[in-house]
Each structure stands twice: as C-alpha cells, then as structure tokens.
C-alpha cells in the first residue's frame, strides 16, 4: 500500500494540484497582505471564474487555455469594481464590517450561481482532457501538467508585478504604511482596488487551468476557500513564498490523505491542519506577526 509506485503518482498529483492551490492562495495573500482583509468571497469568486470558463467553452467553443486573455482581465475588472464599489463603501473602515461584507458577497455569488446554473456539477470536454503523460510509474493527466506550469508562470508574473513595477511599489508602500503612502500622493483607494483586481485576476487564470481537469458547481467555492486559507495561514499571512510552498504542501497532503483515508476524510486532514496551525502558529512559517 505504501510502496513507491503508489505514493509517487499520488505525490506528483498532489504537486500539480498544489500549484493551482498556490495560485489561488497567492491572490488571497496579496489581498490580505495589502488590504489586511480576509476575503471571504475568494472561493465564490473562483467559482464564478470557473463558470465563466465553462460558459466560454460550452457556448462559444473557446478552449480554456485560450480563454486566459478573456478571463484574466474580466476577473480583474470584477475585482476592482467589487472593492471600489462595494467593499470599500460598506466597510466604513472597520475590519468586522469587511468580514461581513465579503461574506455577504460570497453568499450572493454562490446563490446566484445556484439560481442560474442549478446545483448540477458540470465539466467540460476538451481534446486533451483524457491525455496522460507518463512520468516514471505515474500517469499524470496532461491538463494537470499544463496547469502546474501555468500556475507557476502566473505566480511568477504576479511576483514580478509586485516587486518590479511602479504599481507594485505603491502596493508595498500602502501595505506597510497606509497613511504615509497617502501623504506621498498615492491614491490608496485605487491601490486597494488594483490589489483586489489582481487577486481576482489570478483566480481567472487559476480557473482556466483548473477547469479541464476539474469541475464546477455552486458549492466548489467553499472547499477552495478553506483550502486557500489553510495555505495562506500555513505559509504565513502576507508571504508569497509561504503561499507557494504551502500550496504545494497542501496539495500533497490532500492527495496522500485521500489515498490513505478516502476522498472525504482526506479533506478533513486539511481542515485539521488549518485549525491546528491557526491555534498554535497563526503567523505561519514564513509570515510576519499575525
């Protein structure tokens, strides 16, 4: 049961899934690191993006990977609008309000999806959905490999944006010292909205990578939200490196957990880790103090 031929594919699968998890967690990290808000709407937003990819394929025949240039900007705009138009206005600056507003958004999104798409689980079929690639004793689905690569690329792009561009500089300034940044002439509201937009844009990309190998229904958001939070907390709130490594780790844990305990109980492992980390080391392994 524990021999290499069984473990290796499981681990490999976990890594490929983990890369996408990492991408999802990166967006959350960016949002938390800068806005210091826990975006409860992150999972629901991913779900919306997944439906977007689904619709593009079903109704317009657009291949998920080709949908990247559509999904990413669309999600960016959605994120910008949500932050600027709803979250910012509703929160009155108080953290507890932001918590409730993002929860409200997630409820609305999830149930609008339920309304329009019913609760059926949907998948898409592409030419390469069933193609596998042989790596050692493992047969990894081609879409998963592509998503692995894609997730890494997009993560790298996001990191570059934050480190090398003017926007990135502004983001870093605002996250460290909001008032000071404001005094320097940075439009903090705009930066916040850009951040949120980037966070959701990364979800747009993640959805394109996920959809070929995965599925969508109105509830998928919930599962992803907690997994994403687990990663972010594990890696350390606000740490990109932590989110990346955490994502890979969680992917592997989920895969091995599913192998050893069965699909559903395997998921429990993740939440238990989440609770334990939250209780014992909320700053994660790479993060600054919580």
């Amino acid at each position: 049961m524990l021999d290499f031929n069984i473990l290796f594919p499981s681990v490999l699968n976990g890594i490929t899934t983990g890369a996408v998890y990492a991408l999802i967690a990166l967006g959350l990290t960016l949002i938390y690191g800068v806005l210091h808000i826990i975006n409860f709407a992150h999972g629901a937003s991913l779900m919306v993006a997944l439906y977007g990819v689904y619709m593009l394929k079903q109704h317009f025949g657009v291949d998920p990977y080709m949908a990247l240039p559509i999904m990413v900007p669309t999600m960016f705009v959605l994120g910008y609008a949500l932050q600027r138009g709803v979250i910012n206005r509703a929160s009155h600056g108080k953290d507890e309000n932001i918590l409730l507003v993002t929860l409200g958004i997630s409820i609305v999104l999830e149930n609008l999806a339920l309304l329009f798409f019913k609760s059926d689980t949907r998948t898409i079929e592409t030419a390469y959905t069933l193609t596998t690639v042989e790596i050692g004793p493992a047969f990894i689905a081609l879409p998963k490999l592509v998503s692995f690569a894609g997730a890494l690329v997009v993560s790298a792009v996001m990191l570059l944006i934050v480190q090398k561009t003017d926007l990135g500089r502004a983001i870093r300034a605002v996250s460290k010292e909001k008032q000071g940044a404001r005094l320097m002439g940075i439009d903090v509201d705009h930066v916040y909205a850009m951040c949120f937009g980037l966070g959701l844009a990364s979800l747009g990309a993640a959805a394109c990578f996920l959809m070929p190998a995965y599925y969508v229904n109105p509830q998928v958001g919930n599962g992803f939200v907690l997994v994403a939070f687990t990663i972010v907390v594990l890696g350390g709130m606000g740490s990109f490196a932590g989110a990346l490594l955490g994502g890979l780790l969680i992917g592997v844990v989920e895969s091995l957990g599913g192998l050893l305990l069965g699909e559903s109980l395997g998921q429990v492992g993740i939440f238990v880790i989440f609770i334990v980390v939250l209780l014992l080391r909320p700053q994660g392994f790479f993060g600054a103090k919580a």
Partner: protein
Amino acid sequence: MKDFRNIVLFVLIVGAVPFFTQSGVMLNFVMTALYACLLSQAWNVLGGFGGQFSFGHALFFGTGAYVQAIAQMQWGLSPWVALPLAMVFAAAVGAFVGAASFRYGLKGSYFALVTLAFAEVFRILATSVPFTGAGVGLMLPLKESAANMQFGNRAGFIWLMLGLVTLALCITAWLRHSRFGAYLQAVRDNEDAARAIGVNPFSVKLIATVLSGGLMGAAGAFYVQVFQYIDPGIAFGAHTSVEALVGAIVGGMGTLWGPLLGAVSLHILADVTRNLFGQLPGINMVIYGVVLIVIVMFLPRGIAGLGTITPLQWLRGQKSDGDKP
C-alpha cells in the same frame, strides 16, 4: 424591570396566537419565525454581546440535532430528556471550540475562520461516520404525541419554541443587567481595557460561547422534532450559520429584541420572495446576502439601531481605522 415586563408581554401575545387562528399557514409561519428568532438570538449572545463573530454556528446546531436524533433512536431516551441533553452536548462543543480559540487568543477574522473550519470538519465527519447515518442522514420515526414531542398540529411546536425563545430572551436580558454581561460587553468593546480593570477575557468569552452553543443546539434539536430528518448538509451547512448571523446583524447586534426583529423581517422577506418568484433555488440566500451587505453599508446598528442613531450622525459616518485581527 422593563425588559422582563416586555418579555412577559411577548410570551402572552405570541402564546395566545394558536387560540386565535386555526390557519395552518399562519401557524406554520409563526412556528418557523420563532425558530429563526432562536437562531439569531443564539448567535447574538456570542456575536452581538461578546463581539466574537462566528461564521460556523451551524456547528452547534448540528450537534444538537444529531444528539436529539441519536438519543431517541439509539439510546431510547424520551425526546424531552434528549432536548436538554442536546443542549448540553452543543454547549460542550462550544466549550471545546471556545477554549481552544480563546486560549490561543484568536479574534476577529481568525475566530470566524476557525468556527467555519470546525463546522466543515464536523460536516465531513458526519458524512463518513455510521452512527450519524453517514451521508444519508437520520430519519426520526413518526409517532405523534405530546409525550413524544411530535405534536399533531403546529400549536404544540409553537409553544415549545416559544419556551426556548423565552429562555434566550431571559438570558439576553440577564446579559444586559448583570456583572457578567457588563464584563462580556467590555471585552467586546476593548479587551485590554477590560483586562486592566479586572475582567478575565478568556473565561468571559468561554462562558458566552457555551451559552450561545447551548441555545443553538436547542434549535437543532427542535428542527429534528419538526422535520423528523437530519443530514450533514442541513446540520452543519452554511445555510444555518448564515441565517443565524444575518438575522442578528440585520435586527441589531447586542440588543434584546434586535435578533427577533431581524429574523422575522428576513423571514417575511423570504416568504414574500417565494410568493413572487416561486421556489427558485438559492433566491433566499441571495436576498440574505444582499440584505447583509446593505445593512452593513447603511445601517450597521441594524433595525434596532434606527432609533439610536440620528440621520446627522449617520451621514457623518463612522470613519475609524479598525483593529487588525
């Protein structure tokens, strides 16, 4: 004092309803409205008075529900014994989660996340474990009688729930007029300041969690008696958690009547929506979500707060840099 007088009035008026109408629709409405009230009242104890927002309150609901079912079906207990037992179990879960969370100083978003995680864990466990009926759930055998807490008509259920709601009202009123309540609200408003003047935040928050959990467990037990069925999704799913918190927030957190105002308003809204749009899946929750956002945006003190904040104050708004979790 005034609060208790009002509570007595409330009990008399609502309790008399079954004597004034035989309409099944009306009675059903009163019963389900009271049920919604209890959910929000339970959440209000910890969320409104204690300032600790739980996003996974279904955890306690589901515990109560399953205990109520299992105690009857597997331990052969009378439902009237099972009910307090369910409350105790739910309260115990509250003690566990509260102790763990507050021992490690979890607050704000972190606490909300942890409660969500616990609810999810319980949901998954309930799906996998045989004695909860796994994914299929448990069905309470039908045996109508008052002794079996399965009332032939809604009146019995109304009075039962009225009793529980009254219990919640009394507890809430006690929070408003006791040292414990003062300490709890002090911790909510400023934990450090409270510590400096002799309040032990850990024990205060823990007790609030226990009370809140117990009341929520009662609601879960009630659900099982009325609908004679429970499964992991109903027990630990987000729907109940959301209903509890939105009702309390919409009505006014930290007040005596706020949760009832909010719960009933939402209930009416849901009914109206159902009449207008039919049984569309998810439409209820969409409304709850929108209402939540709107209330937080424009009326953060909830409906009950309408009297306490003047339009001028509202326009000036509350601009403050909130604390980090």
